[in-house]
């Protein structure tokens, strides 16, 4: 009996010790001799480039960096924050940024960076919450019109035919449509359709961001224009072409023109190296030219123990030199004006993407908007037969409710 009592006690004590060992201890001070970096990788090229950058900085600063590619960045970030153990530095995507900032997850460090003013103003806005510039944009992408040059020439089109407005886009798409190929394709989602809305002169929010304008006549016009392209048969969406995304349909030759960003370069080089293509700026609508910018920023958790080291690392990562190295490795555009200019010279075939930043806007992304946008995207499945005004009416009321909640 005595012996079993002792062994039971020992077992219980052992359990407590092993559980305690599972929890990690904190460390103090803004400086640290090691950092963890969590990022969502687009592929091996990006992972390798980040590892190389981290190694180079470690040598310079003496701070070890553990680079970790996330399999599901959102989930791993959520888990890290709720477990009180977030990574010291991470990719923060544009669509989640406002949510994270409004919940006070993020350290507003970007304004203190020596190169804070070098970033494009549109990107500074994208990563500002309540007029405070939170985190440094990592790079950016805009949308352009990617054209398959072989199919273009086969249809008898020349450089003069490159679409500059909605009408020329329609006629080019019609001429490119054949039995196996559709003229135009893009993902059926707000991140593409929203461009047409902006080109029509519409928007999701009023200038000051206090009112929802999703059901404006301009937006209705944009949706109806896209519906008419689909009705012509010259626009089909990737799912109907049995492609995971528009870039895949483009690579397979099922679509002659797609609306995508610079990431298509890497994907085509890896999977469809034989496709010849060129990139043009998106055509202007009745309300002028417009495109979207998408970006990630370098997020640092609020009140981080390793803040100072992480900020130094961000400074290194956002230097023109390092950003151009990333551009070379996986095709993103530097987030600083000087870096982007060098990029446009170095990669003239991507100049259209850089030119777009002049008139680019950020997709609507205030805290809570993501759920509304994903609901809108889901309702777009029936776009071809839907009533544009009703689609936008639902979006309007949902977005109004979300905005009201976001503003408290």
């Amino acid at each position, binding site marked *: 009996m005595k012996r*079993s009592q002792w062994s039971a*006690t020992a077992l219980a004590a052992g359990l407590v010790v092993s559980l305690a060992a599972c929890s990690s201890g904190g460390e103090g001070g803004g400086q640290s001799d090691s950092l963890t970096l969590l990022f969502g990788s687009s592929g091996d090229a990006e992972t390798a480039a980040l590892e190389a950058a981290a190694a180079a900085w470690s040598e310079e600063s003496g701070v070890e960096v553990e680079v970790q590619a996330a399999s599901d960045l959102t989930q791993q970030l*959520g888990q890290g*924050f709720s477990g009180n153990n977030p990574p010291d530095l991470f990719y923060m995507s544009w669509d989640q940024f406002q*949510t994270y900032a409004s919940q006070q997850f993020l350290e507003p460090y970007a304004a203190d960076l020596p190169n804070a003013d070098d970033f494009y103003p549109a990107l500074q806005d994208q990563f500002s919450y309540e007029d405070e510039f939170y985190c440094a944009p990592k790079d950016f992408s805009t949308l352009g019109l990617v054209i398959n040059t072989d199919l273009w020439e086969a249809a008898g089109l020349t450089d003069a035919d490159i679409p500059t407005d909605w009408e020329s886009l329609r006629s080019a798409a019609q001429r490119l449509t054949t039995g196996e190929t559709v003229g135009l394709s893009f993902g059926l989602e707000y991140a593409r359709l929203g461009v047409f809305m902006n080109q029509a002169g519409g928007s999701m929010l009023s200038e000051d961001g206090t009112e929802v304008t999703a059901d404006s006549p301009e937006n209705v016009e944009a949706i109806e224009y896209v519906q008419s392209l689909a009705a012509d048969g010259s626009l089909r969406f990737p799912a109907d072409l049995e492609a995971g995304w528009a870039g895949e349909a483009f690579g397979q030759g099922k679509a002659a023109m797609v609306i995508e960003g610079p990431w298509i370069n890497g994907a085509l080089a890896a999977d469809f190296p034989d496709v010849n293509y060129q990139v043009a700026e998106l055509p202007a609508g009745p309300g002028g030219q417009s495109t979207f910018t998408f970006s990630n920023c370098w997020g640092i958790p609020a009140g981080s123990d390793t803040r100072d080291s992480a900020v130094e690392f961000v400074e290194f990562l956002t230097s023109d030199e390092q950003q151009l190295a990333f551009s070379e490795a996986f095709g993103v555009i530097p987030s600083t004006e000087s870096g982007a200019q060098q990029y446009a010279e170095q990669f003239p075939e991507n100049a259209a993407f850089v030119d777009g930043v002049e008139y680019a806007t950020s997709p609507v992304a205030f805290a809570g908007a993501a759920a509304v946008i994903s609901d809108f995207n889901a309702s777009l499945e029936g776009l071809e037969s839907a009533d544009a005004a009703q689609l936008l009416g639902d979006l309007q009321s949902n977005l109004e409710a979300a905005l009201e909640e976001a503003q408290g």
Partner: protein
Amino acid sequence: MAKRSGIRSNESVAGWLFTLPAILIVGVFLAVPVLMALWVSFSDWNGLGPPVGGRAQFVGAENYADVLTEEGLAQRDFGTSIRNNLYYVLLVVPLQTALALFLAVQVNRRVLKGRGFFRTAFYFPSVTSSVAITVVFLFLFTASGAVNSILGWLGINGPNWFNDPSGVLHNLFAVFGWTSPGPLGATGPLGLTWWDWLSGPSVAMCALITLAVFTTSGTFMLLFLAALQNIGTEIDEAASIDGAGAFRKFFSVTLPMLKPTLFTVLTLGLIGTWQVFDQIYLTGGGSPGKTTLTPAFLAYQTSFEDLRWGRGAAIAFILFAIIVALTLLQRRILRDRDEKPKRRRRGIDGDPHDGATAQAVTRLNAGAGGAP
């Protein structure tokens, strides 16, 4: 009882010590997390810092109201997820149970050659990772995939399975020319119109239903097989001598004897289908058009993506309540058909006669156990 002291007084301490490891493990990994999740469902915790003792505030039943009573996107999403899952459960549970029973009876037949092979073959999908199977299904059900090719031989133009958000009941109504909601356009429970409730599972969901039936039937076949092997041959022979044919024997003799197993299979099936998550995660989180969104996935999405952990936990607890309620209901339905004497013997209902018996039994046991 009170007099019990002396040499046995240490026993209760020893007893607690012996159970301490189990209590600790269950407490730390089960009781505390569940209670904490319950607290989170009544708080505005945003996922930053600890849920208890941090900045999280008690907000009452607000999280529950958001998805149950307050009109808006959250309520409609929840309603949609419940509708989708309801059709999923209604189709998967009967189909997989019937198929499992059918397979078990087949591989239990003595005349069947190579029984071992078939048993393994049918059980194989159950031991394969559901991720792997889902990915295979994604390929099988593409627009020009194997399934549509086979349908093509039969002259059927197959749908674009995983990208088709149309409900099968809506499609069926359309055959009869009924395409507009009409009077059913009125808003029903949880912010969805009655017309939406009647959509039936989407074509994409049907592919997932096929997948679920395919993967889980093997597991339940094993349970039925074990139960079938417990039925003695003499019962079978007795029924034959009484002149029962194969069908009569199955429905009047075998099936009633399988009732406890049937209850187990139906309960496990019900729980598993209401919690479906991994297939949804892999097929794009509710796409097409939110027609494969389920409460389990919605709870995950609300928590991790929208950082509304309270609402996510509330959805999880509502799901828990649904499962418990349905399990109790099912237990009641299966028990009511039992014969009276059997019920008495178990002594589990509130009948005073039963209660007395049960008490007597307890006293007897206590007397026997308590004797020094």
